[in-house]
Every structure is written in structure tokens, then in C-alpha cells.
């Protein structure tokens, strides 16, 4: 009779690491253990545990906040700046008409559309489905359109949306509640999820990524007080706060920029996972690559350059702001560089053991991805629908660990050395050139 031990059942590349010992394992997989595992498993699960334990008291707080919200029933301005978004507007108005919180005005700014948007917008305004439709004949960029909407907003709170999004029935109510938890909260980010995840593999992978980084990632950073980006697709702001900082500055990346500006002005920002908004993610990798190059360039432009003052001692120095941006820059920029260093380290020192290192690395990331997915499953309000995505989690190692890392590296290189974000057609040249000259 042959007795099989656990080692016999495992593949050779796993047994190898049992044989060489933990010290060597740590030496070879230092990048995974120190940065990835610690940050995305240990810290996430600790926070998730605390989050779960404090659920009851948080529920009570939100119950009181809801009572306060409906007692005050503040007037809210929902603003939607955009270009060529006419085709989404009717659906959007229908989605907003279903909201549980109803005391809001709807302001849509058409930023120089060259399609039928002006006709649609004016008709919807005439029909009373939009309270104010403002058309700019000349395109000025998303920031200027948002600022124009802000100028004519009458609400105590501003809810900024993207036109191609749709919302849970209580999304606006949920995104407003945190303002009634703490008066120092100046802005609240909504939970953006991918609507078209069944469209393509590209959309599926993004849906998983959004769940990991947007949903869980932001619960953790928000809990730690270092939440640093309110998505442009769905965010709420106190009008007095946003007025005091002069509204939005030129993008791309204006949503992250305004979050930092609010933080720097002394207010807290909060992530509300229950305020759910669905958006369409790019369904082709080519489009996704362009989008990510734009987003990643903005990290260098805003987090490294424009807001570099948060890293240095000054009158407005704040540790949370420091950690917020430092965490963001470290986990994106620094670790991206370190990953290449790690690759070189392995290639030089362990080139003869690659047959054990590469599969093990994939296995580690694969296991980590499913462990993360489990935490998402625990927190998500759409867990059953999201089970559909589980088979694709296996590909996340290649998607985030390789594809996105390469895109990110290219973006950082282009922005750091050539300031390419100022040439992005996403923003009109007339504004970008001025911003570049002014160093904004």
C-alpha cells in the first residue's frame, strides 16, 4: 500500500519551496510578501474585520443620519457636465426620477457637443425633466463645464454624475448620509460598479478590478482616513466647501485633484459603499489602454507635482493628507518601479530557478486574488450577480500584475519626462497649454 503525504499531492514547484525553506522563499518573493500580501490581504482583512465588528454601531449612526437628512431635507443640485452625452440623458432622467431622495434640481452642461445633444437637452428642459440645460458653443473641457454647473447650482450639496451612469434607487440618499455623520466631511464618494461586465473579457476584468480597488480598496482607505479619490462618475460635495476651493481645476484627473484640494482645505472625504452607481467600462483593451494611460499620467501630474506640498512640513501639513497621497504614490509609482527592480533581481540572481519561481508567483497571486474576492463577496450587496465573475479572477494576475503594470509604467514615463498629459485631447489645447505654463 502506498501512503500519499500532502507533499506528494502538491506540484513540484510548490514542494521546492518547502525544501529550500522560508528564508529563501522570502528572499525570492519579497515583493509579494512585503507589499502585496501585507497591503491587500493582511491590512484589508484587518480593516474588514473591524468594519464588520463595528457594523452595528455604524448602522445606528446611519439611522440617525437618515433621520437628520429627511428632517432637514436639504436642497441638492445634481450636476452633469459632458460632451456628446445626449443619447444618455433621457435614461439618466428616468433613473434619477426613481430616487428615494427627491429634493434636487438637475443641471446639465453641454460642453460644446457636436451631435444632437443640444436638441435633446433643450427638449428635456422644456418637458421639465431637466431643471437647467446650459449649452457652451465652444468646448472648454470637463472642469469648466462642471464649474459652470456649479455657478448656477442652488443646492446645499452638489452631486456630480457622469451622464452614462445609472443609479440604485437610494443612491443619492446614501451618498448624502455621511454629511450628517460628521460635519467635517466635505465630500463623499459613491461606489462605482461596472454595468456591462457581460460584454467582453475586458469588461469582466475591469468589473473585478473595480470591486477590488474601488469597492473594498476605498472602504479600507476611507476607514483609515486616507481616501484620496472621489470618482467623477458619482460624488457628492458640500457646496460651501467646493465653492471655497474654486471648484474643479483642469484635468485629466480632475476628480482625484479636487479630492486632494478638499482634503487640503481641512475637510474629510468619505467613501459610501452603499451609494451604488453603475457605469459602462471600456469593452476593448485598446480603449482601456488609452483611458488608463490618461488616469495614470494624472497621478504624476497631480500627486507628485501639483500637490507635492503635502509631503513637506509647512503650516498646513497634515499626516493623513501625507499618508493619503504617499500611499497612493508609493503603491502606484514606487512599487511600479520596484517591480521592475524585482524582475531584474530575479533574472540576475535566480535565473536557473525560474521554473519554480514563475509558477509559484502566479500561484501566489492567483490565491491572493480569490482571497480578496472572498472579502468582496462578504461586503457586496450584489454578491449573487458577482459570482458570475469568479471564474475570471484567475486572469487577474495577468491583467493587474502584467498588463496594467506595463501601461502604468509607460504613463509614468511619458508624464514624468515629457508632461504628456497636457497634450491629451481629452482636454482642449487652449486650456491645457495655459495650465502647463502655470504649472498646474
Amino acid at each position, binding site marked *: 500500500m502506498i501512503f500519499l503525504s500532502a507533499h506528494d499531492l502538491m506540484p513540484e514547484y510548490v514542494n521546492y519551496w518547502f525544501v529550500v525553506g522560508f528564508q529563501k522563499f522570502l528572499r525570492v518573493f519579497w515583493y509579494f510578501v512585503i507589499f502585496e500580501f501585507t497591503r491587500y490581504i493582511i491590512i484589508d482583512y484587518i480593516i474588514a474585520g473591524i468594519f464588520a465588528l463595528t457594523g452595528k454601531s455604524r448602522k445606528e449612526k446611519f439611522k440617525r443620519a437618515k433621520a437628520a437628512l429627511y428632517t432637514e431635507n436639504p436642497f441638492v443640485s445634481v450636476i452633469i457636465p459632458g460632451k456628446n452625452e445626449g443619447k444618455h440623458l433621457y435614461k439618466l432622467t428616468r433613473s434619477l426620477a426613481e430616487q428615494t431622495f427627491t429634493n434636487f434640481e438637475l443641471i446639465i452642461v453641454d460642453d*460644446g457637443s457636436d451631435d444632437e445633444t443640444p436638441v435633446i437637452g*433643450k427638449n428635456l*428642459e422644456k418637458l421639465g425633466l431637466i431643471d*437647467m*440645460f*446650459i*449649452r*457652451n*458653443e*465652444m*468646448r*472648454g*473641457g470637463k*472642469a*469648466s*463645464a462642471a*464649474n*459652470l454647473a456649479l*455657478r*448656477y447650482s442652488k443646492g446645499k450639496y452638489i452631486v456630480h454624475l457622469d451622464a452614462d451612469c445609472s443609479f440604485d434607487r437610494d443612491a443619492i440618499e446614501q451618498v448624502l448620509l455621511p454629511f450628517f455623520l460628521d460635519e467635517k466631511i466635505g465630500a463623499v464618494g459613491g461606489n462605482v460598479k461596472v454595468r456591462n461586465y457581460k460584454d467582453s473579457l475586458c469588461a469582466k476584468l475591469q468589473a473585478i478590478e473595480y470591486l477590488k480597488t474601488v469597492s473594498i480598496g476605498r472602504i479600507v482607505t476611507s476607514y483609515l482616513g486616507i481616501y484620496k479619490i472621489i470618482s467623477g462618475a458619482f460624488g457628492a460635495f458640500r457646496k460651501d466647501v467646493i465653492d471655497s476651493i*474654486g*471648484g*474643479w*481645476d*483642469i484635468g485629466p484627473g480632475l476628480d482625484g485633484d479636487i479630492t486632494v484640494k478638499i482634503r487640503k482645505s481641512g475637510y474629510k472625504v468619505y467613501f459610501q459603499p452603499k451609494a451604488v452607481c453603475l457605469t459602462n467600462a471600456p469593452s476593448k483593451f485598446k480603449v482601456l489602454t488609452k483611458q488608463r494611460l490618461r488616469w495614470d499620467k494624472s497621478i504624476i501630474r497631480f500627486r507628485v507635482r501639483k500637490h507635492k506640498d503635502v509631503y513637506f512640513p509647512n503650516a498646513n501639513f497634515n499626516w493623513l493628507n501625507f499618508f493619503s497621497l504617499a500611499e497612493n504614490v508609493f503603491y502606484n509609482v514606487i512599487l511600479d518601479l520596484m517591480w521592475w527592480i524585482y524582475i531584474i533581481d530575479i533574472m540576475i540572481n535566480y535565473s536557473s530557478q525560474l521554473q519554480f519561481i514563475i509558477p509559484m508567483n502566479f500561484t501566489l497571486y492567483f490565491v491572493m486574488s480569490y482571497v480578496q474576492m472572498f472579502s468582496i463577496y462578504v461586503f457586496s450587496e450584489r454578491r449573487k450577480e458577482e459570482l458570475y465573475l469568479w471564474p475570471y479572477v484567475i486572469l487577474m494576475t495577468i491583467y493587474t500584475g502584467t498588463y496594467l503594470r506595463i501601461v502604468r509604467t509607460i504613463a509614468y514615463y511619458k508624464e514624468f519626462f515629457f508632461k504628456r498629459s497636457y497634450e491629451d485631447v481629452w482636454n482642449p489645447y*487652449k*486650456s491645457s497649454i*495655459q*495650465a502647463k*505654463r*502655470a504649472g*498646474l
Partner: protein
Amino acid sequence: MLNLLKHNSNARKITKEGYSLLLVSHVNELRQESLDYLDGFVIDTDRVSHAREILLYVRTQDNIQISLLPIFINSVYKLPQEVSIHTDGLIELTQLASYMQRVVTITKRIQKVTAPKLVAHDVLIQFKTLAYSYTRNVSIQPKPSRKSYIGYDFPFISLFYKDDEVISLLQNLKKAKQLNYLSFKLQDYVHLCKGCSGNYLNFRECCPKCESIDIKAHDMIHHFVCAHVAPEKDFKVEDGLECPKCDKHLRHIGIDYDKPSTIYSCNTCSHEFQNAGMNALCLDCGTENELDELLEKAVGSYMITQKGEQLLFQSKKNYISGNMTSTDKGSLSLNLFKIIVNQEIQRIKTTSGNSMFVKIEFQNDELQLLNVDVKKALTKEIGDIIKSYLKEADILSAERFNKYYIMLPETKENQLERLENIQYNLSKLLSDNLADSKQEIKISTHKVQATDAIQQYFA
């Protein structure tokens, strides 16, 4: 030869080539004159009110032979368009001969028109208008007029309506068009006040919220470097423009800033908006109209059609009689006729009487090619012939232009000589009117039996 005869101190008659025109300077001259023997009139005054009274007096005469007579204006006088469009133009008395052909044509055409009797006032106006178009061989073409409620005056027909009755005028013309008596060519759309149907309207931009016209437009400024956008007034400082967000001075449009749009603010309710509303104030009655509340009316020229001309010649019959299948004595619509036939079958069951059912069919392909109007006229004429041989108790109905049914109550099989007359005259009618002489008129008779089923009669 021109004869100028003094009839009395005010009226003068011109006779040329046997046609008499009356020179009139005041309507009272017409009242003293017997108009039956005149062939036209010449307005001999430059006073608009007098000229208008003359026109009204003539055109509103009950006798259509008078009301349609040509009316000219003596060329030595200049009368405004509001008068001249209702006349047959200017006439030079020294060159009368050159105008006589027109008088002759009009009067000859007038004689062809048969005046209707006992018709409603608006129908009479409609008829006169058709006759005017026919006798002059012109279209009724509207002319722009500041004095008209709708901005347009129509020749002839406008005389019959007061200023505030212009909608009735348009409706009457529309009715004639729907009946295919007049053809229509669009010239313009007019927008009229919902209150008084006038078109003296003042269009104003207004606040979409409170409808105040006290609104002001502001240019928007977009400051490129900081993306601040606001009305120009927010940027204005003593020495130019300064951004309220970043405090920078705005020097150069296109470089520092641009003006992407304008926005209105209402000085009454403070509402700010980009798309101003628009309303129209009626300067006649003071009604404020939303644009979509204005009455939109098509205005254009009307010309008599062939059907309209037929109406003029047969007006007596057409206006007095109606649709054969529904209103004629002894004629019934098919549905009603079927009920009567069914009743007759029931009656035969109990009385054992003698009644005959007759079916007349025209079997000729050429008839199918006739247009709808001719088919209708043919149906009427056939109906008239058949009815002229029927007795009082006989009942006629038509299914199509080529199929007729007759119920002959209390008629025996040897009492059908009237059918022979009908067949003879119908054959003659067709052979006179159609090139193809191979007409076949099939007349079948059937004695109504108590056991008959209604369906077999109309199979």
C-alpha cells in the same frame, strides 16, 4: 362708338358694342338704378369709403347675375389695394374698346352660371367665390395687407366678411377645397392671436419661469488656466476683467479666456436660464400667447376646379337635391334597402302577396375605367332615369355605380313594362356617352317568395 348718357344728376351710363357700364361715384346712385340691364360698373371716385360701399352693394346682391358683374376703377383715380383687389382693375374711359372684350367674356360666363336657391349664407358666398374665379378665370390670390386681421386680403370673398370674421372666411375656403371645388396653392402660414384671431403681434423673449420680459443676457467667460466659468459680471473689476477664482487678470480673448455662451437672468424672479421663452402679445386685444397657442393658418391662392365648374352649371340640382342613395324620395342606402327586402319577405309569408325584386347590372369593362367623379355623376344620372319610371311605392338602391336593386311591392310578373322602358333609356344613355357601343345591361327579376333567404338577393 362711345355713348355717355346722363341718366340723372349723379349716374352716368356708358354703352359700347351693346354693353352698358355704369359710372358710379356714390352707392346712392346704384340704389336709384335698375341694375338688371347693366353689364358692369366703373367706380368714379377717389374716396375709399365710397368705393368700398359701391363694391359691397354690388357684390352682396342676391341676384348672382348682378353681384358678379365686372367692376372697374376709373384710371384717373388712385384707390388703395384694399379696394382695388376686389375690382376688375383700372379702366381708361378714352380707350374703352380695349376693355370690352373682358366685359364680354365675364358677362357671357356669368350667364352660364345657374344660381342656387335656398342655400345657407356661407354656401352662397362659397358659390359666388367659385363663380368669381370662373367668370374671371383667375385664382383667388391673397394680397398682403396691414389692415387685414390675418395680414392678407382675399379678392372678392373678403368683402363678405367683417374684419373679425376672417377665420370664417378661411374655413369657408377650406370647406370648398375639401369638397374639391377649389384647388389650393400654399403661399404662407399666418400665426394669429388665440383671443381675437388678429396677427398684429409683438414677439418678445421672456423668462420661462415667470414670463417676465424684464430679462438680460450676460456673456459667459471661461478662464482657461483655472477652468473657472461665470457670467462676465463676476469677472468685472474697475480696470478690466479679473478671475474671481485665481485673481489673474484677463487680457486676451482666445489666449486667456473665451466666451462660450450667453445666459439670461430675470430681473423679476432672479431665474437664470439659457433658453429664453418666447411669447406673442396681441396688440389688438392684449392677449399674451405662448407660441404653441397661436393659431396657425395656411394662406394661399384658390382656383376653381372642374368639379367646381360643374357645380356652377348644375347648382340648382346639386344644392337642392342630395345624395341619391340616402336622401332621394324612393331611394335608400343599401343597408336600409336590405332591411326593407327582409321585411318584404316576412310580409309575403303572412299575406301571400306578389312582390318583385329586380337587379340591374351594367356589364361593361369601359365603365370601370371612369374616374370617381364621373362614376358618381353616372350613378346619379342612372338613378334619375330609373326613378322616372318607378311608381311611388317602388324602392331603389344602388350597390355600386354599375349595380342597382329595385323592390316592386304588389307587382305581378305581367306588370313589368316599366323595366323595358328603363332598359331602353339606360342603353341610350350609355351609347350616347361611351364610345364602345357594346353595352350590356342585364336586368333580372325574381318573385319574392316566403321561403327566400335575404343573402340570395345580393349574391
